[in-house]
């Protein structure tokens, strides 16, 4: 057997050498080694070791995968409507997507952040940002549902978000597009960018117990594009770092005009200092309008409140909050290592990666080692903040995650590779090709104090020849690399929804055992709940009809409804009476112009239906629930507008028409 092994090894070696000589492993036939499938294999019926929360980009949603299998468990609707789950279609969830612009059914979710305690993932919530109509969402990890969305005023595109401080004190939002403040006259020529456009950084506080979000303060900044951000941790706790590009302050053809300067900035923000100013009343109360939407698992309904005030701290007037650090060529990623000492800027057009030292930044500030100012904010001398540069790391560095063993992993968009380098000596240690054009990358806990560095995942923008083609639009994808050894080893490709931007992963054990399995029916405080079939009824109020309906395997009550008229607004308030895990019921009715409902055990959800045609409309349960699921149906009789058909509802006892009319007499 040893002999055979030896033969295999030598054959493999020959094969590898031959492969390397002929061409770079840049095609489909890349060097995936023999044990890759074993490393990514999770047997049927077995759990994955990690949860992976992946942004859905322009789908507006967040997806949940298992690692190392790459199996998709769930797509959580966040900023976009989801007819499958009734999200944004049920009366209860519509307020979640309310904004100061009214109901907005779509957005672009770029980044995810798991809540942290003491710099470690605590598994309570995951946050997501809306890049288009600026918002932050909080998803509860006991239900995997969006529980809260807060809109951000004075913002034009929330990109550098939703990054959080080490105890989830704040989740931040930096505007990507600077715009005139909301209370200023925004009706100005676009070419007055330099005078009229401002950038804002929002610090949104997060309730320690309930996670409730509130805009604690905003910092008014010069008009530039804020791109990404990271909180300091450990030694740099109390600080936040934002990358900025377009310090040229261009408003047109940014591709050229925002790429003029040799260096843009990383903005270091002393948020503890900002808190002091806030306490001292140095903030300006500004009249604004933004929506704050909260979902309750008790009333099973969302409420949307329009708030009208925010406190703004001016970075120009209030000293010692903000400092600019020059960073080469339109920095994108701005990542802080596990110790909190090193801040890695990734100039996406630079041929090097600068690493800044928090200690040196502090000393530079103390010594006022400045290179003048930018719109009133001191600019620290590049050399005074710099720890060192990683030379020739690759082309197009974007983002960096850490393994907690002194190494960093940086994604290279243009040269399509992941590059591992050592933080202390800044030497490149390993490279692995990605297929193709990697954007973000993720190591489980890769932004925490103690990363769980078993894998690194690359999230790619282009898949080209990696999957069976599907017309003009191809799947985007993730690629999983084993990094338990010295070298990265590609072990799995898996497709993703929408476009994957940032993602985070954490040990399954942090989340899996605290799942809500059912909502206790006794605690259901929905105003239209039917506590048992006894309470099922149909009530008419003018042209509004409220159907208090119950669902249980395998019938709806009532399942025969008569006396509905064309033009009525019918509200089906369906209560799922089940109290067992994994038994949702669905509800749909012919001609409904919105979607279905998917109702969890013990929950009440409402579908609005405005019948447009006279006749019989069938309704049914859409989620296969039992052997008699096909029987879980009913009928609604729709009569002409103004007709006198009496309201009648029943289950199991509806009399034939002739007997019915006799009985009524």
């Amino acid at each position, binding site marked *: 057997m040893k002999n055979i092994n030896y033969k295999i090894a030598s*054959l493999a070696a020959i094969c590898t050498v031959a492969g390397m000589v002929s061409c770079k492993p840049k095609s489909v036939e890349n060097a995936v080694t023999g044990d890759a499938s074993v490393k990514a294999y999770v047997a049927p*019926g077995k759990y994955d070791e990690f949860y992976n929360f992946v942004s859905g980009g322009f789908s507006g949603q967040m997806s949940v995968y298992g690692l190392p299998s790459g199996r998709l468990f769930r797509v959580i609707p966040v900023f976009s409507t989801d007819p499958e789950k009734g999200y944004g279609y049920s009366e209860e969830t519509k307020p979640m997507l309310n904004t100061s612009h009214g109901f907005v059914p779509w957005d672009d979710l770029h980044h995810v952040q798991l809540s942290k305690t003491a710099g470690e993932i605590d598994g309570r919530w995951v946050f997501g940002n809306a890049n288009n109509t600026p918002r932050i969402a909080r998803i509860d990890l006991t239900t995997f549902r969006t529980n809260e969305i807060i809109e951000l005023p004075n913002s034009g595109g929330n990109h550098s978000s939703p990054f959080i401080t080490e105890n989830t004190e704040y989740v931040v939002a930096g505007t990507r597009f600077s715009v005139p403040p909301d209370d200023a006259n925004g009706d100005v020529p676009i070419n007055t960018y330099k005078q009229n456009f401002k950038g804002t950084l929002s610090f949104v506080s997060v309730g320690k117990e309930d996670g409730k979000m509130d805009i604690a303060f905003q910092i008014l900044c010069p008009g530039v594009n804020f791109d990404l951000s990271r909180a300091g941790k450990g030694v740099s706790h109390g600080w936040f770092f934002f990358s900025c590009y377009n310090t040229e302050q261009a408003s047109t053809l940014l591709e050229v005009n925002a790429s003029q300067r040799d260096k843009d900035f990383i903005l270091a923000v002393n948020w503890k200092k900002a808190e002091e100013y806030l306490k001292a009343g140095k903030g300006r109360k500004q009249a604004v309008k933004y929506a704050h939407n909260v979902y309750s698992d008790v009333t099973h309904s969302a409420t949307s409140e329009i708030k009208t005030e925010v406190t703004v701290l001016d970075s120009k007037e209030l000293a010692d909050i903000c400092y600019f650090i020059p960073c080469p060529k339109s920095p994108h990623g701005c990542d802080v290592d596990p110790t909190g000492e090193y801040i890695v800027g990734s100039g996406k057009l630079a041929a090097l990666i600068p690493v800044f030292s928090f200690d040196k930044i502090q000393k530079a500030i103390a010594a006022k080692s400045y290179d003048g100012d930018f719109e009133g904010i001191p600019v620290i001398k590049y050399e005074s903040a710099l720890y060192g540069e990683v030379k020739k790391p690759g082309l197009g560095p974007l983002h960096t995650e850490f393994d907690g063993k002194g190494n960093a992993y940086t994604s290279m968009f243009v040269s399509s590779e992941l590059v591992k380098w050592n933080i202390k000596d800044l030497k490149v240690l390993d490279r692995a090709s990605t297929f193709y054009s990697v954007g973000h990358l993720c190591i489980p806990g890769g932004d925490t104090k103690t990363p769980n560095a078993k894998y690194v995942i690359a999230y790619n923008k282009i898949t080209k020849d990696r999957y069976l083609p599907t017309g003009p639009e191809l799947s985007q994808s993730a690629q999983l690399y084993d990094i338990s050894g010295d070298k990265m080893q590609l072990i799995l490709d898996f497709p993703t929804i929408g476009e994957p931007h940032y993602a985070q992963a954490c040990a399954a054990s942090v989340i899996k055992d605290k799942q809500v399995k059912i909502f206790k029916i006794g605690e259901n405080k929905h105003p239209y709940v039917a506590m*048992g*079939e006894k309470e099922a009824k149909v009530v008419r109020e003018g042209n509004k009809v409220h159907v208090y309906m119950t669902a*249980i395997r395998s019938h709806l009550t009532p399942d025969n409804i008569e006396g509905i008229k064309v033009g009525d607004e019918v509200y089906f308030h369906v209560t799922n009476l089940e*109290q067992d895990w994994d038994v949702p019921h669905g509800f749909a009715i012919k001609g409904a112009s919105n979607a279905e409902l998917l109702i969890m055990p013990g929950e009440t959800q409402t579908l609005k239906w405005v019948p447009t045609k006279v006749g019989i409309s069938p309704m049914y349960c859409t989620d296969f629930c*039992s052997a008699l699921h096909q029987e879980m149906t009913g009928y609604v009789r729709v009569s002409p507008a103004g007709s006198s058909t009496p309201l009648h509802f029943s289950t199991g006892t509806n009399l034939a028409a002739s007997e019915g009319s006799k009985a009524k007499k």
Partner: protein
Amino acid sequence: MLLNQIFVMLNIKLEKKVKKSFKFMKILILCIHLIYVLLNQIKLNLIKMKKLITSSIIGILGLLIVSCGGDKSTEQTAAAPAASNETAAPAADNGNPSYDPERGEGKFKDVEVGATLDVAMADAGTKVYDVKCSSCHKLTDEKLVGPGWAGVSKRRTPTWLMNFITNTNDMIDKDPELQAQLELCLVRMPNQSLSDDEARQLLEFMRKNDGVK
């Protein structure tokens, strides 16, 4: 962004390269394929050898531990939640000697009931019945989704009832009469997440329904 341009340029370059080396790659791929097949055969032989050795070891071990239950993975299959949603044939544990059909299986051992009815408890049970049970069970002997409740407190021991309504899934898997019932109803009784108190109140309500004063 400039990025896009750079990327497009890079792509074009790549494709040219690929075209040039296409012929060579074809031959290379063929080579790799052959080696792959060869490797696989060697691997297969290895696996076969391994299997032979492992199975004989397992055989010997098996003789030593006949009395042990199934391994972990089969247990997991039997308890799979999917079984509770669909009709899936009940995973019969036939010849399960530890199962006591009088007591059922669950946390309750000797549930004692009074000679007379605890009216307050029975009234509380009415509310539980309305919310969690009445959709499927009538109080007469008429079957709706599940059997009617008339006489149930006389047919079953109090302990069996309490165990069944709180440990529904396991009981349906193990109790021969419940399995027979499932064949009639075709809907597995759902676990309605009753608390111990609710279960006891429901039992009193069943007794009331059966005429206990």
